C-alpha cells in the first residue's frame, strides 16, 4: 500500500516535471486590458472627431472587444477586425504589408489571413505580442495613429 502510494507520488513528480518541459509561460490579454487599450484609442478618436471602429483581438487573432463609434461607416467593422488579426498573427503592424504591395511586392496580397491595410498594430508586453488593435474608418494614417495610441497603453501592463 505504502509502496503503491510512493509509486503514485513519484509518478506525479515525473508527470509534473515532464509537463513543465512541455509547456510555455504566456502572457494573455484579459478583457480588462483590452478595455483599457480601447478606451485610450477611443479618447484619441473622439478628440479628433474621428469616426472609427476599434477592434482588439488576442494573440490568435480572435476578437476580444469591439467598439463602433457613433456615425462610423459599417464596413469598418470587418476591416477593423481584419487589420487587428493581421497585426496579431503576423506580429507586426499591418502597414508593413501595405508598404510591400505599394513597393511592388503584390504577392503580399496572397498572405493567408492578412489584409494589406494600414491601421493594425500589435499589443506588446515585455517584448511579446499578446494581441493587436485594429482601427478603421478614417485615413490610413489616422487609423494607425489611433491604434498606436491604444497599443501604447500596454506598456503599463508589464510587471514591474
Amino acid at each position, binding site marked *: 500500500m505504502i509502496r503503491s502510494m510512493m509509486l503514485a507520488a513519484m509518478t506525479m513528480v515525473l508527470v509534473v516535471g515532464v509537463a513543465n518541459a512541455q509547456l510555455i509561460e504566456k502572457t494573455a490579454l*484579459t478583457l480588462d486590458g483590452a478595455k483599457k487599450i480601447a478606451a485610450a484609442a477611443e479618447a484619441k478618436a473622439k478628440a479628433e472627431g474621428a469616426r472609427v471602429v476599434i477592434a482588439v483581438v*488576442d494573440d490568435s487573432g*480572435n*476578437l*476580444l472587444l*469591439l467598439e463602433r*463609434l457613433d456615425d462610423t461607416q459599417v464596413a469598418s*467593422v470587418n476591416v477593423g477586425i481584419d487589420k487587428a488579426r493581421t497585426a496579431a498573427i503576423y506580429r507586426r503592424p499591418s502597414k508593413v504589408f501595405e508598404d510591400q504591395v505599394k513597393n511592388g511586392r503584390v504577392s503580399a496580397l496572397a498572405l493567408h489571413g492578412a489584409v494589406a491595410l494600414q491601421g493594425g498594430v500589435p499589443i506588446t508586453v515585455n517584448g511579446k505580442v499578446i494581441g493587436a488593435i485594429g482601427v478603421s474608418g478614417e485615413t490610413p494614417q489616422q487609423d494607425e495613429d489611433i491604434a498606436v495610441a491604444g497599443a501604447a497603453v500596454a506598456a503599463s501592463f508589464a510587471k514591474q
Partner: protein
Amino acid sequence: MKQILSTISMVTLLLASTSYAGSVSDKQGLTLDGAKKVIAATVAEAKRVNAPGGSIAVVDDGGNLLALERLDGSFAASANISIGKARTSALFKKPTKVFEDVIKGGRTSMVTLGGDLQNFTPLQGGIPLEWEGKVVGAIGVSGAASAQQDEELAIVGAKALDSMEMAGMVNGHSPLPVTYIENQKVAASFAKGAVLVGEDENMMHASHNYMVHASHRDKPGVVEIHEFDTDIVYVLKGSAQLITGGTPVGTKTIAPHEFRAPTVTGGETRTLVPGDVVIIPNGVPHWFKEVEAPFDYYVVKVR
C-alpha cells in the same frame, strides 16, 4: 432680386418639406453608449449567475456590429457566434430561438438561409433590442453554460435598454430606491449581530452587488473564506485578534462559494480595536481567533 431669391428659397423649402414627408422618415439608432450599457448589464448578470464565460455582441438594426466583449476564459469561437446570433435576431426582428425551434421541428431547409445571409446563425441566444416599440438592434450571447443561459443573459441585456428608456439611462439599469435604516434598528441589529442589507436571494444582484452586516461577537469564530466577497470591516466596539491568510485546515463548504475551517496554519495576526478598518479580499482566509466581548464591527461585503 432679393425678392426672387427669397421666393426661390420659399419654393425650395416647400419642395423640401413635401418630399421629406414621403421620401424619408425619422428613426432612432442605437449609440455606442447604449450598446455598452446593454453589455454591462449582461456581464453583471453573467457574473451573478457564475456563467463560465461568454461573448456578448450588440448590433444595430442592419445587423452590423456596434460593440463586443469576450469575457476571460470564453472559448474563442464564441465571439463570432455571438455576432451571428445578434445579426440574425436584428435582421429578422425575432429571437434566434425561433429559428432553432423551426429547424428542430423538421423544417431543415431553413438552414439554407445561411447561403445568402452572411453569418446566419439559427441558434438560441439572440434577442432583439427594442426602443419605443421599434427594433433598434439586437444582442447575441454565446459561450455561457448552455444555449438556454446564453438566451437568459441576452434577455437581461435587452431589458437593460428598456429600463434606460423608462428611467433615463442609469448605468444600464433603473435607479434603485434609497435605503434608510434608522438608528434604533441599527443598534438592535448590532446587539444580536444581523444582516442590515441584502438578506434575500437577490442580495448579489447585478445592480446590488453588496451586503451590509451589523456584526456582533461574544466568542471566537471559525476560519472563513469567501470565494467572491471582499469584506470591508470597521471596528466599533471591543477588541479581537484577527488572523488573515495562512492555510486553512479541514475546510468545509457550507454554502455555494462559502468555505469554513476550524483552524489555520500560518497567516498574519493583528489585534483590532475600535476605529480600525480592515479590507479582506475575496479568497483570503480570515479568523477572529480571540474576542474581547462585546465585539461589534460593521462589514460591507462587496462582490
